[in-house]
């Protein structure tokens, strides 16, 4: 089954000088349900535009978007979106933030908070339920965001460079936790819990099926480490898909070791040969401007 399908999608933006800027051009992409697809490209290549179109936050200028077999009209209700910037509500505490999607859907407060708590236990933040986002570290905020997105159990996870603002070690840890969530949607702690009681009881009401992930990044290493398939976009304006590579590395993956294996390095070389050209092009054009 196909979770998301873009069919010859273009998106233009009006420029202040009256002209139009074409961010993405003629993008056709079908993502199978349960697949983890990474999109890489040089900066300014319209990766975020592509995600926003898939999310229904931006309508395409031309072309079609289909989600779960139906044409997308307005917001994509089968998707959640993890933004590059912090998107937790600063005036709600961690528990309320995680429960937000449920609260919005009309789930009772008690129920929503109980489910939020089990998700917090799962991402190792049970003790921080009453904290406000401003009191957490960057990595902790990302975990809260993951829980916030996962709790509403949508089939498609759109992720826009979610870990790019983190330092490299925190980032690797987040990638591992993301894969743990994705590979094991039926529960279990991705971060070992300290309290026995939490470990024993209350398994999170887990999502029903493996999620489809569309993960945008400018970091090829991250893309290969996480995804089943890497899609390379050309330098903007009018970005197109220039290559698609299947990543055949075995799962579950040990991200600590993976990056130095021959299979990984070979794959990196192959895709980098394509991506490098686009990066060079984008640097040249931005140098000219």
């Amino acid at each position, binding site marked *: 089954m196909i979770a998301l399908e873009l069919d010859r999608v273009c998106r233009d933006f009006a420029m202040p000088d009256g002209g139009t800027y074409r961010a993405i051009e003629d993008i056709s992409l079908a993502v199978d349900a349960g697949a983890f697809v990474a999109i890489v490209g040089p900066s300014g290549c319209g990766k975020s535009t592509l995600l926003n179109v898939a*999310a229904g936050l931006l309508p395409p200028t031309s072309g079609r978007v289909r989600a779960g077999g139906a044409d997308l009209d307005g917001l994509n209700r089968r998707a959640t979106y993890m933004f590059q910037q912090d*998107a937790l*509500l600063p005036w709600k505490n961690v528990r309320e933030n995680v429960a937000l*999607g449920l609260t*919005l859907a009309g789930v009772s407060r008690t129920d929503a908070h109980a489910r939020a708590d089990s998700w917090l236990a799962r991402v190792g933040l049970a003790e921080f339920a009453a904290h406000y986002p401003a009191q957490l570290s960057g990595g902790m905020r990302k975990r809260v965001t993951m829980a*916030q997105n996962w709790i509403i159990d949508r089939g498609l996870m759109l992720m826009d460079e979610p870990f790019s603002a983190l330092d490299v070690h925190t980032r690797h840890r987040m990638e591992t936790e993301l894969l743990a969530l994705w590979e094991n949607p039926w529960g279990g702690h991705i971060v070992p819990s300290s309290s026995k009681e939490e470990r024993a009881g209350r398994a999170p009401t887990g999502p029903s099926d493996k999620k489809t992930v569309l993960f945008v990044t400018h970091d090829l290493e991250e893309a290969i480490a996480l995804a089943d398939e890497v899609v390379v976009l050309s330098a903007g304006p009018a970005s197109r898909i220039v290559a698609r590579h299947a990543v055949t590395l075995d799962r579950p993956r040990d991200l600590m070791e993976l990056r130095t294996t021959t299979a990984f390095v070979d794959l990196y070389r192959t895709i980098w040969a394509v991506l490098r050209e686009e990066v060079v092009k984008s640097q040249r054009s931005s140098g000219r401007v």
Partner: protein
Amino acid sequence: MSERRTTILAWQILVGVATLALWQFLVSLKLLDPFFVSRPSDIARRIATWIATGSMWPHLIVTLEEALLGLVVGAAFGIALGFLFARSPLVARVFDPYIKMLNAIPRVVLAPLFLLWFGLGIWSKVALAVTLVFFVMFFSTYQGVRDASQVLIDNVRMLGATERQLVRHVLVPSALTWIFSSLHTSLGFAMVGAVVGEYLGSTRGLGYVISQAEGTFDTTGVFAGMTILGAVVVIVSAGVTRLERWLLRWKTDER
């Protein structure tokens, strides 16, 4: 933290005492004429008499009543319209010149009109306070809503928020910071509106007391009235600050 607060409080008291002492000193040296500026000891004595005889309370209560009504009505209209304008750019663009025009009218010019329309009672003063409070609240609400982070809005919408939930969970809390910071200004403006209104025509209120004192060249009475006015604003403002600190408690650790 609390040590710093004590230090600041000590300095505040010192500044006040020093100013009063200097004032008293200059008057007693005849460098300042008490006929024009009175003297702190006289003003204090006058306030004490007012409090002791209880003659001040009815006036103070009337002024507070007018200011409070002006604040509530002005804030309600200002916040409601600020939201409306921020949420529908078309309305904002159509009414923009009119809002600017109305805001440019000096309120003193309006006071006699309000006296004519609403009479000598409290409502003409409330109306004057409303015209002052409304614009402060309107502009800050407008700004606060427009200022709401697009990422927060997009995120909440992706999580399934309806338009109403968006307002409740994102726009209102985000505007609250602005609304509260302008609440302090508004409070002062509400008092100004009430007192100016009373000053220009009334039979009760602090403004009336001050105007009566001025009519008889009683500068001590004028300064005593102004002192009470200032003290009341400071006390009420401290209440607002406490409320603000509680409502915006999520922010305290950020600072």
